[in-house]
């Protein structure tokens, strides 16, 4: 299959998703890749790099180690750093070269854990999938291994799937907490911005989980399976959708069921000329927010991994530039990251909403906090 682009950007990959998801939790994340390959994540995908310490490293893989299957160097280096730094857990991630040589990360994790006595988790990344895939696996691991319950249910909501790749800043997560409080809920834990690993010990006590990105969905399902916690999928973007989403959480709590609020947009005609482009939960929530605010139909073009439950009638799932350009050509209004603009038709209105996972730090300062805010978008 050929997946090419003449002029648009690309989304960041699964390894960055893992690093971003686990950044704040006191664990050590090691990407088994060549020297220098960690600077991409640290430079473009991680706004916390300068301000908040973490333990994200690269193994500095060489060709000779890859060819000779010298896993021992990797194991020794990980154990030596772990001894020195004392992480709470270790996560090891694959990249393209180990994928080609068939490196067994399950076995490596097992050996590392037995040698240094620190819980070690294999992440099945290969650098060839999107960040959603990597972050999803990391969040699922957290839900399985580090979330617990005291048995005392609290009137709290947890936030699942928060990383700077989708939400950019802690301030936006804080806005979600403020909105949840307004909806009558206490603060649970956030997976994974602004909470510690210890906070997850009571994650199962929450009444509901709020999934704020596609990356949080797998974790929500695990917590539903483990603790029976219902979940709601959506971001409270715009005042009107914020109210509706709050009501959905109450309904989910009462009915003990999941509600994918961001996809509850009815059957939109496929020739609807306003589209929101991007990650499914953000784009779906924004589309619903705009629909409720303006009364006009809005479709979503999902450009990343999106399960069927996130896709509403009239939506399209497109990842390739030429197909996107064809789809954009039918539109009169495109709401998307600015780096999609070169393929939007000149006569269409283009509304830039930067997305860190696509345009990195280029427009970081322009990323809006639309949580529970009146949408000022002129369509």
């Amino acid at each position, binding site marked *: 299959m050929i997946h090419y682009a003449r002029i648009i950007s690309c989304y960041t990959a699964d390894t*960055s998703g893992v690093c971003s998801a686990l950044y704040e*939790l006191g664990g050590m994340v090691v990407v088994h890749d060549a020297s220098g390959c960690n600077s991409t994540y640290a430079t473009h995908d991680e706004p916390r790099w300068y301000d908040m310490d973490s333990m994200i490293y690269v193994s500095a893989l060489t060709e000779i180690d890859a060819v000779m299957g010298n896993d021992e160097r990797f194991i020794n280096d990980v154990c030596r750093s772990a001894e020195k730094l004392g992480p709470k857990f270790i996560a090891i991630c694959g990249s393209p070269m180990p994928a*080609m040589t068939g490196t067994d990360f399950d076995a490596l994790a097992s050996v590392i854990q037995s040698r240094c006595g620190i819980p070690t988790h294999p992440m099945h990344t290969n650098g060839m999938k999107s960040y959603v895939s990597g972050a999803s696996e990391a969040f699922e691991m957290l839900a399985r291994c580090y979330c617990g319950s005291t048995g005392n249910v609290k009137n709290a909501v947890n936030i699942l799937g928060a990383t700077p790749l989708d939400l950019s800043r802690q301030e936006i997560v804080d806005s979600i907490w403020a909105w949840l409080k307004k909806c009558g809920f206490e603060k649970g834990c956030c997976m994974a911005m602004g909470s510690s690993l210890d906070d997850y010990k009571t994650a199962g006590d929450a009444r509901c989980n709020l999934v704020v990105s596609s990356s949080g969905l797998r974790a929500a399902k695990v917590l539903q399976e483990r603790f029976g916690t219902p979940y709601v999928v959506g971001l409270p973007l715009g005042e009107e959708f914020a109210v509706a989403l709050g009501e959905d959480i109450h309904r989910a709590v009462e009915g003990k069921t999941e509600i994918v609020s961001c996809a509850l947009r009815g059957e939109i005609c496929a020739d609807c000329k306003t589209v929101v482009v991007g990650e499914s939960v953000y784009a779906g929530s924004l589309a619903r927010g705009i629909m409720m605010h303006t009364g006009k139909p809005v479709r979503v073009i999902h450009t990343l991994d999106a399960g069927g439950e996130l896709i509403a009638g009239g939506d399209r799932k497109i990842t390739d530039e030429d197909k996107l350009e064809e789809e954009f050509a039918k539109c009169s209004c495109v709401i998307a990251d600015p780096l999609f603009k070169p393929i939007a038709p000149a006569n269409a209105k283009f509304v830039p909403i930067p997305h860190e996972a696509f345009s990195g730090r280029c427009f970081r300062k322009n990323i809006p906090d639309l949580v529970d805010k009146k949408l000022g978008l002129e369509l």
Partner: protein
Amino acid sequence: MLKKAGGELTKPCGIKIAQAEFPRPFAGGLEYSPPARGDWNIVHIGLLIPQAHQIYFCAQGCLRGVVQTTAEMDAMDRLSWAYLCDEDYADGNMEQNIIDSVTQVIKRMEQRPPCILVFLSCMHLFAGVDFDIIIEELESRFAGVDFVKCYMTPTMRFSGLPPVPTMYRQMFVPLPETAKDGGVNIIGYNWAFEESCELVRIIKNSGRVLRQLPGCVSYQQYLEMAKSSLNITVIPEASAAGEELEQRLGQKHLYLPVSWDFEKIKDNYKALCRELGVEMPDFSEAENKARKALEAAAKALDGEPAAVDFTAAHKPFELCALLLDNGIGVRRIFVDVISEEDRGAFEHIKEHYPDVEIFPTADSSMRFFASADGEENRYFAIGQRAAYFCCTDYFVDMVGARGCYGFDGIVAMAEQIADAARNPKDRRTVIQHKGAGCQSCL
């Protein structure tokens, strides 16, 4: 103030230079990436060729860095890409997929570029992709376009020529065989040397045409570098380019390495004058000016301890020796590996200044160095990494010596020290810009 995410902050892991071993004073291991981004990468270097387009073929994770580098330079119209999926590297169609992708990209361009740099990755080389067949087919499909084999292969950095020297070599492959006009090229350096540089003055006073790639504004002007009869390189990473052009086009290669040693600088100029057949100028005035500038820099620092990192300049130990010998109190040097060219200066500092501390930059514990060492502005720094690790806003924002060459370069560097000692910079903003001197949207 830094927030600690987990674990206790570890103590800095430096050693006194007296205990340091050549060439690797520190054990290898897991690597950290400090948030100082001024180094140039293969994208920045490739974009020096005017009007050239770059197309990258690699996994999504590897693409991200080059795409974002380009986006920050607002140059996305000069870069295209195709990514590899799980199923691609084993299906035997890699060559055809690359050819088809390049074809599609070109068809979607409004204007065909004169030159396309095609970058393959570690995965392609590992899979044994036949790059020659790809280029031959593309040349047959698109006559008039120069296709250049380029490599983004960090895994192979110890298997032959590393990626950056390879880039410097490959970027001159389009230069054709042509009649020579006696001109002189400076190749494999990211910035054009100014008129005040002695190197430039010697060449121009000899009556020869001087050609520098960073000064070229069109592809045609770049191609005219083929007319020169002499190529000068000033950093070791560019030597392979000089050797390739000497062999292929008969352009003499002269290696005149960046130096911070007065005698070595004069040796460079002697070699150049001999090659150009001109008399060696008298540089005593330039030498005096350099000494006075260093004296002024030392005075401006007024005994303040200084730190230098290896990204600031080629031969960081030679730079430190110059500073130490001229009264500037270098106390810390941040370096992971010591080059053979810098060995003499390393030994000099070891013997005469044994208390100077050296630190790695990529060691995993360096993640916590800045936060553990956190007293602001206790040091003066030369180089972005030194500024970051020592938490100082008083620093010279210098990467790869950035145009500083010879006595004139020492004057420029010393003046920057004197200026930076008085005028603090917004460290965080300055050091996060990629590719020092390149356009940036940040």
